[in-house]
């Protein structure tokens, strides 16, 4: 790899030409998704752990610092270190539900 920080061969204007519309659409999808959740009755439930992680991740997008993808993924990750006693299911939910491994 070159030592330059510009490791994407596309000049920035070309990268925008290539990807802007696609990612503009994804951002609007996300905005519409949050609006949709506002229209859905929470039925008294506390904020869902997935939505809480999503809100944390959204703040990363505008904090002006780099490595956004890594940090967003970390927002959704189980931060604990110990194996859990028993697998409760086979699948995954996309965000950590806050249940720490019990000793």
């Amino acid at each position, binding site marked *: 790899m070159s030592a330059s920080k510009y490791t994407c061969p596309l000049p920035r204007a070309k990268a925008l030409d290539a990807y802007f519309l696609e990612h503009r659409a994804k951002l609007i999808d996300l905005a519409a998704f949050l609006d949709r959740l506002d229209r859905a009755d929470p039925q008294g439930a506390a904020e869902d752990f997935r939505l809480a992680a999503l809100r944390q991740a959204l703040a990363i997008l505008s904090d002006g610092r780099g490595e956004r993808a890594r940090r967003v*993924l970390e927002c959704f990750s189980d931060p604990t270190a110990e194996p859990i006693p028993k*697998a409760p299911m*086979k699948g995954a939910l996309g965000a*950590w539900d806050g249940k720490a491994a019990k000793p």
Partner: protein
Amino acid sequence: MKYIDPHIHMVSRTTDDYARMALAGCVALTEPAFWAGFDRSSAQGFFDYFRQLTEYEPKRAAQFGIQHYTWLCINPKEAEDPGFARDVIALIPQFLDRPNVLGIGEIGLNKNSRNELQILEAQIALAAERDQLILVHTPHLEDKLKGTRLIMDALRANGKIEPARVLIDHVEEHTVKPVLDRGFWAGMTLYPDTKCTPQRAADIFETYGNERLWINSAGDWGPSDPLAVPKCHQELLRRGHPASFIEKVSFRNPVEFLGQSPKFSAPA
């Protein structure tokens, strides 16, 4: 452009997929043993699966000029019952000398449970004892970061495993650097909804370089694309990366890693 797809589950794909992959330039692939989407009812079910991977699939691939290699194990999704898992592990040694078997895989963790970890350790020990390469599956979504760390610790704890003989698969932006920093190889899986898109895989190459790193489709019975690897090549070309870059990540890198097994012969 000729390429290797180093992780794809052809037992779940049609013969048409072999034809399309061959047209797109695939010359070799490796197929790790995995979960079938349902739990097998007996260890004998794995015996038949291992025969399919070592006898039947290589013939199907050869019809299209594709070399077929495989990896054997019990996958972490069926490792929550350690007694059952150990019965399956006991079947593996008799298959290890078959000509297309490169090693143990895809072993790893799914929900990061104690039983999964115990069965992972047993299979790491088998690989060490039989001097096999290892292909590692890392968990999904919220479980990936923790699971990747637990797996790397288990590999190190064995004491006999050289990191350069282990490929840790399904890395993403939060796990690729720790994996490479500890001397392991890393694989990026190109999935439509989870794991990496072709664009993000290209981003990861631009951020972390192209040493000890490869891409695969992990095509299986779920939403996945057996042509994901050539689609990622298109993305790299679109950005202006040279053809030699693609040859490095999708041919020379797999040949270098897989060639550590004497059974692998680089496709012409």
